């Protein structure tokens, strides 16, 4: 019941960003020179020693706050909890049951570190990051904003760059200056927002700077220092963006329009004739405008190393992805007045990220190597402020994580490109019920849907369940079936208590129909448990 109540209480992951960024003044995206630099960076090897040092600093800052508050820490997560956690957080899916067993049985004292290295180096990390950033950049609901092909095209674009472990600042920059069609460029970001400067400004500031500027669109921000003119000055960077299609055709599915910078176009304040010139959000950062399109100027300014908001926003987002909440919450409201739970840690981690040439894998390595990340979701001080991280926050799975886990239980491969993923479709529908298709929430409607949806039923019905068929292997007796069913769903062996409760069901019933039904019933229970839908 504790888990259930936590399930209801936990805030959903809000993977939106805020921050400001930077790059050298002579930075030009996409040139041959840039590509060569990027090529060199592909062969970067994660500096694990630096990551280990950063992990110690993380623990130091967190422990200091806990000591000041006289709060006890939760014990370390169990092996099964930890491996499921890092797989879900970093690759977006459950570990294979055999990997769980292998990790549990590993007696190496450094096995956690080895696991982290192995998982962070996995190509699946790119899938996870591409999923996260795609959800951030374009809405999931294909009928509303952007067609599936364009969205997938953006996802693949991101995937390749994360797979190459490109610098995050370069990925952001390339995305902001994209031109052409969605076939080979990430222009879906722009077409999904209909090329409207105000929408693009709002999304850009949220994703890359961690600032929710939308309030300032109509009036000065009520709680922060942003003025209406700040918002429109940012929007002015997108005012010259044009397409080869009519306005109404932009969000039509399969309408693969090309976009380009026209060199003309301005924005004005709403209901006024005042033309607003493009201007960086914060002063003190040279925009190095010079030549180039407005978007190029914006990209240079945003990704500049002098722009602390860019590195802080990305750092906070990755921290939130792994720890369940940002050092600054909400992650997309990192305005000037926002305060971090651990200000020094926020600063150092952002510096670490910047010093690593915006290497996201190295940032993930540092955070996951910390003892703070390894804490259990149980134990520790009762009712402690979650921002103190005395206990690991149990995170509800996102729609994509749910889809991946369900597909794993279904024991079917990931669909190839252009194929519809039924599990993703289901998870998105469940998320959309609460307004955000990228999130999966455990409300009553969702629970009823997962318990009775025909697609879900395929997972546990005896005739159709591939997992149950697999568990019919002759070398698995009843207790073996139970054990591997647990491992295949919640990634842990059953506890003694659970086995005790299950024993009358699985072995000693005189009712033959009950004997035949117990695998289905148990699988149903496991898949509908809050444990399955949460990251431990």
């Amino acid at each position, binding site marked *: 019941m504790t888990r259930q109540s936590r399930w209801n209480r936990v805030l959903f992951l809000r993977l939106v960003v805020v921050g400001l960024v930077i790059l050298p003044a002579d930075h030009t995206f996409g040139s041959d020179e840039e590509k060569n630099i990027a090529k060199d960076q592909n062969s970067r090897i994660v500096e694990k020693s630096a990551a280990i040092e950063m992990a110690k600093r993380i623990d130091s800052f967190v422990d200091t706050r806990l000591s000041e508050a006289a709060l006890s820490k939760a014990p370390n997560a169990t092996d099964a909890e930890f491996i499921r956690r890092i797989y879900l957080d970093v690759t977006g899916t459950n570990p294979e049951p055999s990997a769980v*067993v292998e990790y549990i049985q590993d007696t190496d004292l450094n096995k956690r570190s080895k696991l982290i290295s192995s998982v962070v180096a*996995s190509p699946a990390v790119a899938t996870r990051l591409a999923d996260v950033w795609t959800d951030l950049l374009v809405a999931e609901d294909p009928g509303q904003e952007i067609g599936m092909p364009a969205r997938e095209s953006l996802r693949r674009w991101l995937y390749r760059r994360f797979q190459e472990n490109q610098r995050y600042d370069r990925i952001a920059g390339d995305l902001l200056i994209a031109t052409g069609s969605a076939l080979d460029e990430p222009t879906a970001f722009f077409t999904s927002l209909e090329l409207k400067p105000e929408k693009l400004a709002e999304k850009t500031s949220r994703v890359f700077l961690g600032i929710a500027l939308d309030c300032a669109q109509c009036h000065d921000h009520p709680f922060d220092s942003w003025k209406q003119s700040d918002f429109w000055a940012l929007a002015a960077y997108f005012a010259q963006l044009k397409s080869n299609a009519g306005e109404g055709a932009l969000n039509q599915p*399969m309408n693969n329009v090309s976009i380009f910078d026209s060199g003309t176009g301005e924005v004005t304040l709403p209901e006024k004739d005042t033309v607003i010139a493009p201007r960086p959000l914060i002063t003190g950062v040279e925009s190095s405008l010079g030549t180039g399109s407005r978007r190029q100027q914006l990209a240079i300014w945003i990704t500049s190393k002098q722009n602390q908001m860019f590195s802080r926003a990305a750092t906070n987002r990755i921290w939130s992805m792994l720890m369940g909440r940002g050092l600054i919450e909400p992650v997309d409201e990192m305005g000037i007045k926002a305060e971090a739970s651990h200000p020094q840690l926020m600063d150092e981690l952002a510096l670490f990220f910047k010093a690593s040439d915006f290497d996201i894998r190295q940032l993930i390595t540092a955070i996951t190597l910390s003892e703070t990340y390894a804490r259990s979701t149980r134990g520790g001080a009762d009712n402690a402020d979650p921002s103190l991280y005395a206990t690991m926050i149990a995170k509800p799975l996102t729609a994509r994580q749910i889809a991946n886990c369900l597909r*794993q239980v279904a024991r079917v491969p990931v669909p190839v490109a252009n194929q519809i993923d039924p599990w993703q479709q289901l998870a998105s529908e469940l998320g959309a019920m609460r307004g955000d298709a990228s999130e999966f929430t455990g409300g009553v409607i969702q629970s009823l849907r997962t318990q009775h949806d025909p697609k879900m039923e395929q997972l546990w019905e005896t005739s159709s369940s591939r997992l149950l068929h697999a568990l019919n292997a*002759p070398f698995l007796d009843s207790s073996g079936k139970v054990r591997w069913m647990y491992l295949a769903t919640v990634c842990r062996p059953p506890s003694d208590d659970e086995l005790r409760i299950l024993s009358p069901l699985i072995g000693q019933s005189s009712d033959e129909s009950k*004997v035949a039904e117990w695998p289905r019933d148990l699988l149903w229970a496991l898949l509908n448990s809050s444990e399955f839908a949460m990251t431990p």
Partner: protein
Amino acid sequence: MLCMLKMPISIKSVDAVCLGIIIVAVLTAPGCNKSSNPASLAQSIAEKNSADENAAVKRTEQITAIKSDVEKPVSDESAGPLAMQASSSDQVNSDQVNSVEASSVTTFPLPSYEEMKEQADAGKWTWRRYVLLADSGPILLDFQIAIGGQCLAKQVEDNKNRVIAGLIPDSLESTTWAQVVDSPRLSQSVFSNLRPTDDQQKKDIIKRYDIDGNGHPSVNELYSYLSRGISGRNVVIFDEANRFRSENSDQSSVFVQMDADQDGILDDGELAQCSVRLAKLDLNGDFIVSGSEVRPPEMDPQAFMRQRNQNVDDAFIFMNPEDERATATSVLRRYSFSNAIVLDDWPQRADLFGLLDSDQDGELVARELRRIIAAPSDMVFQLAMPEIHSSDATLENASQQSTDDAEKKRGENDGEKAAASKVRFRYHARMLNQWSTVLGNQVIDLPNVRFRAQLLDTLDQENLRIRTEQQASQLGITPTHSRDVEDMSGAIQNQATLAGLDFDDDKKVTYEEIEKAVSWKAQLTEPFVRIRAVDPPDAWFVWLDANWDDLLSEQEIANAPRRIAQVRKSDETTLSASLLPMQLQLVFTRTFGDEQAFQRLTPSTPDQPNPNASALDWFQAMDANMDGNVTLREFLGDISSFEALDINHDRILTANEIGSGISGTGVQQADQRD
């Protein structure tokens, strides 16, 4: 030249529509330089052992040895398909293949032409001889194909008798034609294409084959019906040629991708990063590196055929015993612009050259080349396929027989082991589902199981309806009952398949055409074996593709460093592209009936709680990526159970191993706890 005969061949997945087998003959061991090739290795070993002898003496000795090999009697066991089944018990993994000791290479009594022909004539197998016109000299290949211990024609005949016996439970008089066409026995093996799918087909069959119209089948009527779709002629079809790896394997796009500093060698740092770099080869962003993304674009089939017809340098030619002259002419034109071949034209085949050069004048003319038809084989591929069984008992019997064979093999004395060590070639073989379907008169190879699932998914009428109604706007599909071929190209990338689907060539695929395509069963006109011979253009890709599905999965990419390390010598910290052994890859595809054939007939296993589950049902369900194999990562069960089933210790479970494992004693019932 490598040394041991390795033929772990038997049926892997009997539920398949088609049975495919890939055999890789590793022609050059790792560590050998690029100039090494099959024949040169034996030669170089001989040279090493007698360094102070002059070349002429060495060559004479080699020729003498070869001639003596030809004259040696060959036992049935070493030459026949049954021997191959038995040899499966001592399968080796690729590591073992690569660690072949050169000293065991010298001689091997491969069967002579006469011997093989005699046994083929006796009905032991279907036999074909080909010559592979490799750059360094011809390689003679013999294929012995047997099914259930018999040649194909006999097997078909036996199947007919068995099926008829199964169709007639009591007597002909008490059996009706309606019972016959409804019988699940018709799903057996090559007969599975005879089973009607709807009432109209049943009526048509009865009307056509119930010749006397009495409603009851006669033996002749049944023979006529069962013979409808089969033929024993020309079961071997060569499919491909001229696709050999470049001598300069440094050009492997896979290797180049891994070699970050482009210095031609992989060092430790590059090895550590190779997975990340390999993933960059994923051009279409489907998170899998497919062979098509690595290889150069394939030639248009029509252009290929045109070139093939004009080009006498085909890599393979069939050696027709009835036309020695044609064979000799082809070989001559391949290697020489004059009327004779000199030893320099065959730099690696001094042995064969000496054998054919009967007048010892240092030249091979057409007259002498004609004798190549009867020269000793360089390789014998013995392909024995167990039949698909039709009753509960036969599967059990087959498993038992397999176990008995293995035990018999194990019980053989050291003398035989010594003989085995003299085998001239070792073949690393692995079974693979090679799905095919028949569209019209074409046979379309479906590259892998995933592709097949994709195709069927796309073809599925219900699925198409859903797409049309619910997602037409997203996919840009006109909500009519047809799809443009171009539209489908996104989902089905095999253009040949698309062309096959479009029966009326109107560039649209309709429901009717889809239905026609998936109900192809009656169009299969003969069982056959297709052979593709490929020395992979990008052998590094093949090397990393551990499960041979022509895809580098995420797991395979992650495992790349370990896989590459297998090639590297233990005392080296770097490796060059040329260290990879040269490979000759032969893909056999045998077409049976529809995919449900095995499913409908597979006996239930009393030990299994689900009465509908087949013996292999759990195995197929464990195969999460549906590639036909189960790796340790996919396996649900303790490592001890996995190892007990993994007979050849290659860390991959195949359906064949599962069949053996179930019937054996290696797998315990209980699953052990941590």
